[in-house]
């Protein structure tokens, strides 16, 4: 019997429960064109990694609560003071001071628009999104950077206004909990588990 690996932290130590790997036997690779001589073996492997979000954890937790966080450098001695970053940057890339987390949800709802996009018919192994994937890169007023995400409804276009949606029901606590829909989309149209 196997269960998924689960982890929690107690006294600053990882505590592990369940199976973190599953055994599958090797099999030989043989040459059908040469008397089935041995060429190699398969090496099956299935593992679960234990990954810390560190100072970005608050960003991923906030998505599950319907909030989009960015960060800003407030260091008065920094040439880039006031610059707003999303992706969330824990430290300012210029002065390396600790940035302040700010709530960008309202700015996103009012000013988000598509800078560029791509409709991708293919995916790699372990993909969890429906295909085709509509990649979008989003500009916001007053933000220095251009966030990459995906559009859940409609067809993307340059300059198109979009609003964020959040997987508040059954969140994955990954970047997939943040998605976007065209401005004016009705609540009933949202994909399962998502809300504005």
């Amino acid at each position: 019997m196997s269960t998924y690996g689960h982890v929690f932290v107690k006294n600053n130590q990882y505590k592990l429960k369940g199976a973190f790997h599953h055994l599958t036997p090797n099999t030989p690779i043989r040459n059908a064109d040469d008397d089935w001589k041995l060429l190699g073996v398969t090496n099956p492997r299935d593992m679960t990694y234990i990954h810390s979000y560190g100072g970005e954890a608050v960003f991923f937790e906030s998505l599950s609560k319907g909030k989009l966080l960015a960060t800003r450098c407030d260091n008065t001695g920094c040439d880039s003071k006031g610059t707003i970053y999303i992706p969330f940057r824990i430290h300012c890339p210029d002065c390396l001071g600790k940035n302040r987390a700010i709530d960008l949800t309202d700015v996103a709802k009012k000013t988000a628009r598509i800078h560029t996009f791509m409709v991708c018919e293919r995916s790699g192994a372990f993909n969890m999104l429906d295909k085709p994937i509509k990649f979008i890169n989003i500009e916001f007023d007053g933000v220095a950077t251009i966030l990459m995400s995906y559009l859940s409804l409609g067809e993307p276009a340059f300059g198109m206004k979009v609003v964020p949606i959040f997987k508040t029901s059954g969140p994955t606590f990954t970047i997939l909990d943040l998605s976007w829909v065209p401005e004016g989309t009705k609540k009933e149209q949202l994909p399962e588990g998502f809300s504005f």
Partner: protein
Amino acid sequence: MITFSKQQLKIPQLQRPVYLVTAGQSKFDRAFPDKRTEELCIDAFTMAAHLLDMSPAELKKYIHTCYYGHFADHFGDQLLGESVIHDRLGLDPLGNVGVKTGGATGGSTLWEGLKAVASGYSDCVLVMGWERMDEVPTDEGNFLISCAADKDWEAPLGHIYTGYYAVMAQRYWQIFGKSEDSFRRTLAEISVKHHGYARFNPFAQSPMKITVEDVLKSPVVAYPLRALDCCLMSVGAACTILCDEDTALKLTKNSKNKPLRIWVAAGSHTLRPADRRDMDIPLLPNETADQYKDLGKRFPGGDRYPGFTGFLAARMAAYYGYGMAGIADPMEDLDVIELHDAFTISDVQTYEDIGLRPYGYGRDYVESGDCYHINPHTGKPGKLPSNLSGGLIGCMHSVGATGIMQTFEIATHLWNRWEEFHGDEMLWKKFDRKKPKDWTNLQVVGAKRGMAISHAGVGSHVTSTILMDPDHLIKKDA
């Protein structure tokens, strides 16, 4: 807005001249079920020795340190693969180091080797690169490649690198290509050219005689990019030997290889395109600030630099490289180039980043016929032929080896030995490939100076490798 300090913009200075004396490579293919990586590396090294009319054992006596380019440990499922190769080449106990910078790994490995010789640490170094990309099925391979994107912010989005990349292509296509059919055809022409040149290269994995229509009818990967717009996934190895002047003269005593001067420079930019901040366009010697003043007017939306349309890392690699080697105008000063054509559209973007054309006008390098061995419009030699190897689209993209393969190609032109290494019947037979009846000698006649651009993914790392015949330097004290 990002600005650069004077210290950061310093033109790099080598402590002494560095020479490339030989190079070699294995056959490139999608899979080698019957060969270990070390066998391919030994093929490449043996070829490099033979070009000097030496045995591998003789050549090894000169090597002092080794630089190994091997990007994806997880593809080959072997950490410290460099150490395996180093031992199998019989080069212990010499110092060696592994270099990893994504698609630019080959170029970065040359960069490290160059600095070792230039500093005087070593008089002669081995620069070797390889990649093993056939140990997983293509889907899993795409997953592994996507691990080169930010694992929290990008990779979960489909685990498909093309998607992270192609958003940039889309922006370029709409802003600078104006979504024109004519531009789409120009992109297709690049694929036709590279698969076509690959037909004359026995090392190449994907020789094809195709038309623009074939490219336009190939399956969509991420619109407007189609299957035939994309580079290959490959297995193979390539190497070169770099040394100081004295060693170069000794090693080439019995060889047709003339020692070639080499410079390598590098630039970088954010792993996530999402993190790019605006800045003024850093200028190359053949550009002025004035020419970009109204870029946004000429190409609405094109005023945000580097935005998602320019590769700052390529621009900086060119800036440092041109400064070191004294190149004032790459179209005038260079005779042959190999570019990192991961996709047809990134080939065009690179023309602008490295100053073959101003920003916004990259397509003209193809449309003018300048990029061809023989310009199809004039029937005369192209002004600056590119990717005569077939490039990443037609020849290979065995990541750690790619930048070194490009450098091998440039060197064969400068040695005037291209025909020998591409036309030899024995080589075609050895690789179990059929030499086409219309095989054509793509030697660039009289080539004295060339360059190779090695580029990682969305532009996180880019290197420029410049080679020159030492009797045809631009800057005497370079």
